[in-house]
């Protein structure tokens, strides 16, 4: 499977990583190389195989649906690049 420049641009946008227009061809080539390596998986007969979920079969743990933590907004916000009045601040989202 080979990735063209348009696909590379789309993947970069989906991943929310800015890539300069002039860097897209090299990126496309690099991603194509890695995907070619993965093509080997097509040789394997996976008919009827269930995807692996865990090392030994185990039911997902459950707990009581109760609040066990929280109530410290200052701690939650302490690492924010921009926090104001008890909120995370971001550029305008809605026009």
């Amino acid at each position, binding site marked *: 499977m080979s*990735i063209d420049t348009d*696909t590379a641009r789309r*993947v*970069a*946008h*989906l*991943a*929310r*990583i*800015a*890539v300069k227009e002039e860097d897209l061809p090299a*990126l496309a080539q*690099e*991603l194509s*190389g*890695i*995907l070619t*390596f*993965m*093509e*080997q*998986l*097509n*040789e*394997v007969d*996976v008919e009827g*195989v*269930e*995807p*692996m979920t*865990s*090392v*030994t079969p*185990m039911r*997902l*743990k459950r*707990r009581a649906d109760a609040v066990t933590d929280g109530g*410290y907004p200052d*701690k*939650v916000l*302490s*690492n*924010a*690049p*921009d926090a104001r009045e008890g909120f*995370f601040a*971001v*550029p*305008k*989202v809605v026009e």
Partner: protein
Amino acid sequence: MSALNQLTIAEARDALRKGETTATDLTAACLSAIEAAGALNAFVHPTPEIAMDQARAADDRIAAGEAPAMCGIPLGIKDLFCTKGVPSQAASRILQGFRPEYESTVTQQLFDAGAVMLGKLNMDEFAMGSSNESACYGPAVNPWRRGNDTAPLTPGGSSGGSAAAVAADLCLAATGTDTGGSIRQPAAFTGIVGIKPTYGRVSRWGIVAFASSLDQAGPMTKTVRDAAIMLGAMAGPDPKDSTSADLPVPDFEAALTGDIRGRKIGIPREYRMEGMPAEIEALWHRGAEMLRDAGAEIVDISLPHTKYALPAYYVVAPAEASSNLARYDGVRYGHRAKLAQGDGITEMYEKTRAEGFGKEVQRRVMIGTYVLSAGFYDAYYNRARKVRALIKRDFEQAFAAGIDAILTPATPSAAFGLGEMADADPVAMYLNDVFTVTVNLAGLPGIAVPAGLDARGLPLGLQLIGRPWEEGDLLNHAFVLERAAGFVSRPDKWW
């Protein structure tokens, strides 16, 4: 007695209990060693004040008696572990300045046991890499050199700082994490012991996530006995990690009986790779002979899907990484890009992530995004998960046929030079994981044990793979191999 920083955990524990030394003396010795080892770039955030406070508290506990085995033992902590109030940035620019408000379960358990944190250790960015060269701090350097050649070598990756620090006696032991070989490969490159436990044995809570179905933390130590002692303190069920196993933690050290008579050791023929260096092949052979001499039976086995492990890994791991790393958006923590007039939230995300993530991380996030995108999910991701099930089945069949442990090389080569792989294809770097990655995919425990030196005097390791949840038994096999190999070489101190 050796210099205090050169002690093993077991030696230090015994000396502390007998009152022959103190945790503060041990810690001070390590802190001096760290200060003198800037050239290794292993400790990237030293925490001497925390260390001395913890050491004093440990001495009080030891004086009061009843101190656990890890009490007063100075450790290095990989930068991937969140440590309260201490920089924890996964060697990434995007987590610059991040100081967690909480403690990872593993470090909390170690501290509860009285262990001392000397500081945070270098690693590949987000644990993605095999040479420590993707770190935002610059690479850690291997204390080992090729004879008189002064060219700096990689300590391996991603737990490169941990490996360099333990091999250079900057700490008694260190924490590592292993997603595709990140404990075992650096351990092999630096002549130390590293164990990746069964997936679920150690809580992942508070460890920066790379690929959640593969990540597992473990100890990196000078000896197998130390690995047994430290794993005991790290392991156990954790209500904060729903994938941690509700199994009691056995006394791993007590499992080191040194008796493996009658045990069956599998030698998987698919691990005999084309172009494998003769030295690695010879070492593997010698390892099998050592186990045979100890009374084990050596059996040729087949793990037919081995060949597909790396491609399956490089679908599953980036897919999970792209999802896990979506949280680095410049909103809640870490780096945020400076924005231009008129930039909105999308530009903020895109610029922040372009500036904050290094090249390898960007590459893997994009590969992961692609294989999970509409139309490709089944072709890549689901297929890889099915191949993963087949790889696991290969191991299950071997164990069902009576195999107790599997012996393989740990790495396809000795440590290579920093920068030597710079122009190589990314896939060439991925091949470092060829012997280790199957173990993560199958969720099994695996351990790297130093077993010899190559022609240029660099350490080489062997890997043993065990049955799920049988770390004690695996460690016992490793203990026998360690004793028989008698690896005592140390790097010449040049730093």
